[in-house]
């Protein structure tokens, strides 16, 4: 469940609805009621209003904290540093993005073996996003020329052909800037 929520765009979309639907339901109900049903002043005691305010703000801050604290293990910085500490057998890949292609030192990988992607751009701002064969974005990196490399460690879980796309607009053939990676089940 958490993997779905924090490692996919649709997970983010689900959380979006979780926040939006209660807000719009309650807010528009109150607007409708106080505009068209009973527009008179409410005699709600100020003590009660203060209590509602406290509950509302505590609830919002609590949910905000929960959502973000639970997301921490999914931060690439955290997973990269953990993988760097625990795994000795990391496959290093150097990626250079240029208009409108990628130079990669490796394009074939093995399920379960961590891969360290060291990526940079040689001309303008580019992206380096890897798509799972099912269309889900695994991660994206923004590459600004002149900046030391962007780098993270990722361990492929499924075999297949993975698409690479540039997600930063880089000129008239931006949409053609893509590549492929092949992930196999086993090194044997």
């Amino acid at each position, binding site marked *: 469940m958490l993997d779905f929520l*924090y490692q*996919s*765009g*649709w997970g*983010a*979309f689900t*959380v*979006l609805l979780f926040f939006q639907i209660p*807000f719009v339901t309650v*807010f*528009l109900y*109150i607007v409708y009621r*106080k*505009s*068209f049903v*009973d*527009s*008179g*002043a*409410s005699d*709600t005691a100020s003590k009660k*209003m203060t209590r*509602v*305010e406290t509950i509302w*703000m505590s609830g*919002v801050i609590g949910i*905000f904290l929960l*959502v*973000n604290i639970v*997301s921490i293990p999914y*931060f*690439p*910085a955290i997973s990269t540093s953990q993988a760097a500490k625990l795994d000795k057998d990391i496959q290093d890949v150097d990626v250079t993005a240029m*208009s409108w292609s990628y130079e990669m030192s490796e394009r074939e990988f093995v399920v379960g073996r961590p891969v360290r992607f060291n990526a940079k751009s040689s*001309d*303008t*701002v580019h*992206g380096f996003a890897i798509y799972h064969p099912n*269309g*889900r*974005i695994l*991660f*994206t*990196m*923004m590459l*600004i*020329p002149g*900046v030391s490399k*962007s*780098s*993270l460690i990722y361990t492929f879980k499924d075999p297949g052909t993975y698409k690479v*796309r540039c*997600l*930063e*607009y880089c*000129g*008239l053939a*931006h*949409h*053609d800037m893509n590549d492929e990676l092949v992930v196999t089940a086993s090194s044997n």
Partner: protein
Amino acid sequence: MLSATTVIRNTPLFGRMFNVDTDTGLEEINAWPGLMIMISFVWLLIAGLLGVAMPVTQIFELDSSLFYGAITAHGAALAFPFTFQLMVGVSLHRAASCLGTPVTGPLPALIFWFMNIGALLLALAVLLGLNISYAVMFPLPIVGVETGQWSMGTVILGFTGIALVLVTVILLYPLQIIKMLFFDNRRDDLLLSPRSLKDPGMLGMAIAAFVLLITGLPIIIVASAVLLGLYGILPMNLITWATEPVVFQFTFFIFAHNLMEAMAIMVISAVYATLPLYLADGTRKLYSDRLANLALWILLVTSLTSFFHHFFTMFPALPAALSYHGNIMSWGTGVGAALTIFTITATIWKHGLRPDPGLMTVIMGFVLYIFDGVSAIITSNVAWSFQLHGTMWQSGHTMAVLIAMAMIWIGVFMHHYPVITGRTLNKKPGYWFVGLFTTGALGVSYSFLAAGAAGMPRRFAAWNQEGWMVYGNLILFFGLILGAGMAALAYDLYKSRLISEPAGGKSAVPAE
């Protein structure tokens, strides 16, 4: 008669909708704001046509450069000469009528001409092939010349236009607001609804002006250096520091991010100012000015450094600590928003509402604004950023916040309309506008966000890949509904009647 009034009167079609009332002695607060608002709607028409052009180029598989030209011009027109100029017009009118200061002299004229000439020059450069997206993507403009995508002449033309727009946004407009707030003498004949800086409606205006001025100065310095280099006035070896991509990107996003935040603070202050005027019990007070002001201060403090969320995916080039800071500050803006939600909801609950199309436009704009805020903080979580950065999710966020802010300003403009023009609007087309525009905005917003969730890249001229065209079709469909909403508003403006003229439907309460 002021020159701005003359320009409005001589403009075909739009002139009738925005004609300034010269009989009330308020021309000095009406003319320039009226002209800016009118021209902003002309730009909206252009931006709308370009917006339709994008999916059309995809559906008919036209040359991709048409798509990139349309997206560059659409984004630039929507952000600056439409939304920003609309905000300038309505907010200057609001400030003038609350402070009793005229909107005359060189500054308003410079704001108007710099913004619109700048936008025209940029549009011309785009027509000549400068397809750099409205986010500039530096050093793409220079790389594009080196790779033969466009000429250096178009870059110089486009950058000249961008410079004029930046000077308007970062210097001229904030200086005009600061001048009115702190230096101009009050004239009782222009004072319609006195307010002070203690009022949330005015405090937000002051905060926004200073945020624009301070956070925009670095990009003014960098962009000026680049422009002087392009003109050949400064030798290129003297401006290499400014042409470093990371320098340009960071100064650009410190400005661009805080531009949106300043506009958000400004627009929320406008909600705080307008809502009390429509309370059913006539109290004309928010539930709590202190809570409202606290929300504005929280929004200011948290938003200033939350711009790091634009760079999360550079890791480790952007240190993790700065990513975490950006994450926390971005969600901190949500705390300010939660306080605003409570203040507005409690105000409505306690005092009731007198419904009116203008007010409902403000309220539905506020709903869209909060909806968009949720999409913004989600993509500002470090984990989700690595899934969503560079996808249509972020285009959806940018577009939705612009639409939400524009909708609120349109609502405030509908409230001010009788004072500016001496005419009133009709309720029926007003409610049609609210319904259609809200439906279109929500539909477009969700289509973009769903496309982003499905991994569809933004600024990407190949929607036919991976089944993404369905989102493109939805965007076109709801975009047309947005357009229908604007048509209803245009009809309403065109059919407005003199205040003295009797009619079936009564309109707004008297404006401030």
